[in-house]
């Protein structure tokens, strides 16, 4: 005061800083909070379920999931703020949906593996059902495995080239009404139920007075497979940058060679994946096989003549017999089918990685 009086300068009160530490940091939940929420939610869910005597464990799970979302939202609102709570809400819902999607998948795989592994061995894979009464133990899946491999292989041989060429036409050449019509019918074909494809081939078969054979089944399967191949290949070809086509054309390379040597090799990884996924889709079809391949207990390696079996058909057949050993065989065959599809997927991934455009130095 004396100084102020001496210098004649009035001392103004400096405004007090707000009590918050800084304006950028705020109260936050620890990183492990979601885990804690989940633990609490599950404990509460299980507790409530047990206390209320709910029979279905699905109900326990769903209630826990609901609790998890509510708890994380409320707690975050109280401790942090509204915006963080909304963020947490969205994250929790995504996690819950993810789990809801994954649980049935794992449950399915677990059930199939645990039940199917019981009788799945070398004997099962290398013997047919010839001379084995359905209600007794023994026999195997060899004839069905051969049937599936041949029918799916033939269907792929038929539909992969046609599908690939259709996609090339649509992406590289197609303009105007024809391309639009093709696109439309491919879309329609994607939705054809397998039994309809089977009936279509069956009607031809009856008109031409042909006998059931693996080939007939393959024809129906290729009807189902073709639109999937066209769609996926089309998308992959569209991903190839136009600059590459122009670069090639500008070198004086004709269009057909450009497509063959530049466009398709660039997209080949994706195209292979698409074809493999289409194979996986048709490998599990039963309806056309029942109508057109007829089913058999014997090994028939000729897909062009005589009845054959296939894995999905075998599963259905064994299930229908209804004895304990036949159920075992059905589960084991289901496991073989899943393994078949999974191996195809792994092969597809391998090829996609191997063929992918290289970026290494």
């Amino acid at each position: 005061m004396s100084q102020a009086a001496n210098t004649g300068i009035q001392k103004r009160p400096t405004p007090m800083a707000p009590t918050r530490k800084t304006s950028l940091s705020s109260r936050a939940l620890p990183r492990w909070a979601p885990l804690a929420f989940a633990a609490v939610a599950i404990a509460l869910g299980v507790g409530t379920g047990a206390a209320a005597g709910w029979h279905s464990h699905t109900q326990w799970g769903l209630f826990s999931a609901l609790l998890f979302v509510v708890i994380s939202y409320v707690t975050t609102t109280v401790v942090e703020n509204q915006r963080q709570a909304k963020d947490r809400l969205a994250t929790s819902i995504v996690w819950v949906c993810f789990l809801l999607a994954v649980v049935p998948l794992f449950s399915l795989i677990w059930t199939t593996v645990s039940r199917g592994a019981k009788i799945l061995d070398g004997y099962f894979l290398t013997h047919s059902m010839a001379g084995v009464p359905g209600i007794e133990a023994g026999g195997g899946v060899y004839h069905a495995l051969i049937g599936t491999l041949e029918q799916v292989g033939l269907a792929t041989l038929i539909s992969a080239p046609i599908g690939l060429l259709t996609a090339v036409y649509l992406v590289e050449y197609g303009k105007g009404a024809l391309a639009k019509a093709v696109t439309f019918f491919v879309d329609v074909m994607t939705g054809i139920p397998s039994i309809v494809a089977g009936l279509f081939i069956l009607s031809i078969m009856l008109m031409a007075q042909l006998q059931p054979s693996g080939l007939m089944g393959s024809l129906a399967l290729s009807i189902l497979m073709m639109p999937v191949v066209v769609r996926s290949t089309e998308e992959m070809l569209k991903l190839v940058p136009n600059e590459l086509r122009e670069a090639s054309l500008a070198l004086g390379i004709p269009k057909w060679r450009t497509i063959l040597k530049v466009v398709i090799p660039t997209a080949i990884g994706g195209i292979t994946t698409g074809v493999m996924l289409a194979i996986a889709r048709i490998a599990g079809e039963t309806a056309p096989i029942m109508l057109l391949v007829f089913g058999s207990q014997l090994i028939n390696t000729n897909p062009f003549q005589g009845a054959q079996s296939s894995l999905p058909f075998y599963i259905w057949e064994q299930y229908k017999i209804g004895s304990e050993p036949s159920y075992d065989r059905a589960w084991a065959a289901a496991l073989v089918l899943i393994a078949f599809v999974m191996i195809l997927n792994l092969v597809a991934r391998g090829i996609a990685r191997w063929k992918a455009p290289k970026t290494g130095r």
Partner: protein
Amino acid sequence: MAKRIDVSGLSAYYGSHLAIEDISMTVEPRSVTAFIGPSGCGKSTFLRTLNRMHEVTPGGRVEGKVLLDDENLYGANVDPVTVRRTVGMVFQRPNPFPTMSIFDNVAAGLKLNGSYKKNELSDIVEKSLRGANLWNEVKDRLNKPGSGLSGGQQQRLCIARAIAVEPEVLLMDEPCSALDPISTLAIEDLIGELKERFTIVIVTHNMQQAARVSDRTAFFNLAAVGKPGKLVEIDETERIFSNPSVQATEDYISGRFG
């Protein structure tokens, strides 16, 4: 080698949209001709009409004549594929084929045309890479993918790929616009060497570049917004940059445009 281009009354359309109108000019052999002008005035479109790449764009069509040493590129019996073998092109963004090695990228034009002898191939690849000033940088990794090179190297790889098929004319559509100054310098030096053997046409947005590398410069402009692009004038580069005969050219070059 190296042919003269005579363009007369050339218009190019995208569908019903007229992009460039009534262009006539002469491009001298063994020289560098630069096209300058504001964006959207049709420089690139015009360049692409010179090797019939314009018609690759859906709806693209051309009216008028382009004479390559007295032969009309748009004549009735002319195959666009043959035209493109004679008139090569380098694009704005480097676009090596991602599935091919450096060697295969350079050899692509020959291999995919089927017109080569096996024992000559590696000689041609080496000659083209040397021609593009890239040989010393890549000679130890010819089997590595071309997309692993840097941007400037990739662009020189594309130039090597274009000159490997021994065209008469080389069109370059802003070849340096995606490159750093050092790579740009490398490519400008290269253009100086290549003009001994080829007729070169280069589109550029960089006025200094046009002044540095070209012998003749053509200035393109839009008559007005929404109107088709036109050739304003073409002359010796020195004249265009010192004493152009049209006021608009001087305004554009000195940055007093609009």
